[in-house]
């Protein structure tokens, strides 16, 4: 009996240690949102503390579980008439020891924690580039700095940033609280009305990094995804130039080939959306009276400049294809519950031929030189997140 117990408990110890060590690491890394596949110094700092806490926890976990198992097997009552065991009320020395052990372990975690907190706090004060991010229900607006007289680049849901720079995100919201989170780049930081929070990352490898809103913000909180696109400096500059230049000549399949010839149906769109270089849309649909609940904080939709280069629609909900854009323009509510575009664009508001014109037009909004490829390096995910509608 005794030997079986010892074997059992040794086996359990080994299984616990191996299982505990391997499983979370292997399993947790299998996602473009993995919190343990760092791609910046900041994410790496965090991961180092995580690994420290993980290994310490594993030791304590295995120690305690094995202790429990051993006690349970060793001191099981074997006979019903077993006498009362010795009545031990406590032991001061032992109790002091097991008060001290956790204290020491915690100190080991606390020191690098404090160092990292202050280091990261300092970093936000020394940016190479400041990017302003505005949380909306349920998408992200991105503003880039502009020199005097220069046009400010404004985009949505896909944040281009240059490689090898310290980029500091300044985070704003004029509605509810959101949280800006790109797990591979750094921890999350909340967007809170009336507060400006800052988050620094030192970009390293070029590629697509997947982000998402991490603070519950209403109906479609789960569909508030975004991407950070880290690209070589020259490519980043070229992208900004292209944005400022406005859309190039439209591709051949656009009626008339004239980018300024905005389809009539777009008049309605332009109530809330902007396209750089397109001032207004003549004629077309009368702008309807907007529902009462649509105030300024809601009537502002994503900037659609260079829309044809976006990889997704509706903040990462759908892959950007003409078919998906058609479904979206037909009935946004069915794809993204509660979104404000759906309070105006209901099935039938836009005629099918209008939708086709708008789709063709929007997909043609690309720089003259094309969208360009991001040189994706190994270890960086290339996937596009999609949710295809039925």
């Amino acid at each position, binding site marked *: 009996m005794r030997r079986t117990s010892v074997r059992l408990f040794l086996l359990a110890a080994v299984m616990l240690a191996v299982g505990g060590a391997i499983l979370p690491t292997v399993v947790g890394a299998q996602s473009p949102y993995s919190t343990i596949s760092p791609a910046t110094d900041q994410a790496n700092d965090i991961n180092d503390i995580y690994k420290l806490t993980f290994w310490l926890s594993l030791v304590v976990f295995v120690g305690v579980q094995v202790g429990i198992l051993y*006690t349970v097997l060793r001191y099981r009552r074997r006979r019903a008439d077993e006498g009362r*065991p010795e009545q*031990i009320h406590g032991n001061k020395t032992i*109790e002091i020891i097991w008060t001290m052990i956790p204290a020491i372990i915690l100190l080991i*975690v606390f020191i690098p924690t404090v160092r990292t907190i202050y280091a990261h706090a300092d970093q936000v004060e020394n940016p190479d580039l400041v990017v302003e991010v505005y949380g909306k229900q349920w998408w992200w607006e991105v503003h880039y700095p502009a020199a005097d007289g220069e046009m400010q680049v404004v985009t949505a849901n896909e944040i281009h940033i240059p490689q090898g720079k310290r980029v500091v995100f300044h985070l704003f919201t004029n509605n509810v609280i959101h949280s800006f989170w790109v797990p591979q780049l750094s921890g999350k930081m*909340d967007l809170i009305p009336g507060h400006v929070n800052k988050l620094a990352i030192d970009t390293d490898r070029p590629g697509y990094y997947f982000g*998402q809103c991490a603070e519950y913000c209403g109906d479609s909180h789960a569909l508030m995804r975004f991407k950070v696109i880290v690209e070589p400096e020259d490519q980043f500059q070229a992208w900004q130039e292209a944005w400022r230049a406005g859309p190039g000549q439209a591709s051949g399949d656009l009626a008339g080939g004239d980018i300024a010839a905005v389809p009539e149906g777009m008049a309605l769109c332009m109530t809330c959306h902007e396209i750089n270089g397109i001032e207004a849309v003549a004629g077309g649909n009368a702008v309807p009276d907007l529902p009462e609940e649509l105030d300024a904080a809601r009537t502002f939709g994503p900037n659609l400049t260079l829309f044809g280069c976006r990889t997704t629609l509706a903040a990462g909900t759908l892959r950007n294809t003409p078919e998906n854009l058609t479904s979206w323009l037909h009935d946004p509510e069915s794809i993204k519950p509660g979104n404000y575009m759906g309070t105006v664009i209901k099935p039938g508001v836009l005629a099918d031929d209008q939708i086709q014109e708008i789709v063709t037009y929007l997909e043609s909004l690309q720089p003259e030189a094309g969208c360009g490829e991001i040189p994706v390096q190994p270890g960086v995910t290339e996937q596009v*997140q999609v949710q295809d509608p039925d």
Partner: protein
Amino acid sequence: MASIAQPQVMAQPITKPATGLWSWLTTIDHKRIGIMYGVTAFLFLLLGGVEALIIRSQLARPNLDVVSAVRYNELFTMHGTTMIFLALMPMSVAFFNYVMPLQIGARDVAFPRLNAYSYWIFLAGGIILNLSWFFNAAPNAGWYGYSPLTSTAWNPGRNVDFWLIGLQVLGVASMLAAFNMIVTVINMRAPGMTMMRMPIFSWTTLIVSILLVMAFPAITAALILLAFDRYAGTGFYEYAAGGDPLLWQHLFWVFGHPEVYILVLPAFGIVSEVIPVFSRKPLFGFSVMVYATCAIAFLGFGVWAHHMFTVGMGPTANAVFAGGTMLIAIPTGVKIFNWLGTMVKGSLRFTTAMLFAVGLVSQFVIGGLSGVMHASPPVDAQQNDTYFIIAHFHYVLFGGTVFGLMAGTYYWFPKITGRMLDERVGKWNFWLAFVGFNATFFPMHFVGLAGMPRRYFTYSEDSGWGPWNLFITIGAFVLATSFLVFIINVVKSLRNGEIAPDDPWDAATMEWSTSSPPPVYNFASIPQITHRDQLWWDKYGDHGAGASGAVRKAPAPKEHVDPSSIHMPNPSYFPLVSATGFLIMALGLLLDNPVLTIGLLHLPILVPIGGLIMVVGIYAWAFEPAG
């Protein structure tokens, strides 16, 4: 049961307790109120469980459409609110009510009618919260209701109103119950029961009640400000009006973090009773356990902002709150080790109660360790609001609280009902719960590390979260079956379970010295307390070191006391009347009803009507003869 010889089964008390619905509606007996709390809370637990199963069904695969996004958001809000306020807290209160007065040798709580009033108001709060489903306006802003998502601008429906009025009503119930428990413990202990002779569960009752009294005012104030913002157009939480959404977060978590200890400490108290009894050894380091409970409760008030590491409080605040949070791990660790120390060199008997108790020790460690991980703000910045957190606090609130409450149920069921729960079915119950619980919540660590945020009604295929989510959903259904087994056990045992003797477990505390179930007056004569673990002392004499193998003493002959000579308060229906008024008043703020306009005052008619009933009820009860 067969293993321990029983001296005798006490004769039933001479005065039969009253039966029938009316006797329950008017009861002021702490034992019956305890049962009512327990049964009601269990029904709410099942409701919250069904909500959880719907949530899990929706998440079983990517892009499922089992429920709409709107419904899903209501479900997770109500799952959290229900489990915390309507299931776990009142279940703890059920044990406080039933067990504590018996443990301290009292005939009832200090304020029996107030006790009934607490229960009825709790029930009113539960009704209000769940009535919202029938108006298609279930609370939808999360159990933590972060502003501005609760403002009329961003949440114009009645959803948040149901939530805030419901919580406010529940707060009244909690405060009344807590004061009652505090006064009872302080004033009603049997002669000779000094504080350090008091059983550890009664200690826990006292400390948790003090926590309640200190924590609830914070959420009450927070909810009042929210009510002003919503009903009167003030802007306490609105940045544009000079307020601040972070004010809500601070006020909420000043309540919300102690609330965690309000939920888990009662379970700690229960296993601190169960483990010594089934180890046949006194609790290791009794006084240290008491101090550790006090320390956890005290430190629990200084760590609220660890829920807010990502709101941008700045490095100093984050570092300080990280340090405070880590400190709590020390007294908590002491508890774990002391439970282990109690078992070492004991004579362990694995009844279902003991299995659940040891299960708590084992599983709570996991929740504690993951808690230390995100006590570090940088790590928290990755784990906060992900499934890692969900895993963490379910290891605390299920692996801790629910396991503890189950241990308590299996332990005290014989005392409460006079029947034993079936041990064989109980083992099935435990192992299904243990396996289902771990299958459900352990993989949540993985999906959390893989970046899956909480409160997502759906996720994409490419996230890679699909396979484990399917596994988790299957685990959740296994876990649910453990509750079915529990229900079967209770029903079966109530009908034809083994008759419980007075002291089936050879226990150490005074509730086991009276009959099972106890008479209305609990004890024929109030016991004299000379030692901690008095009942062991009575049975075995000095159980100090070296008393191994002590011979069981013959039980002292029971003194015969004529029950009619014992003064017990009369039943009263006024607590129910007054609570009904309270319910009507609260509903007046939520449902469409004619509005009375007197000058600037717009009063929905149900409010003064309900208020009048409430006041009349309290007035009548004040002048009712006590018996």
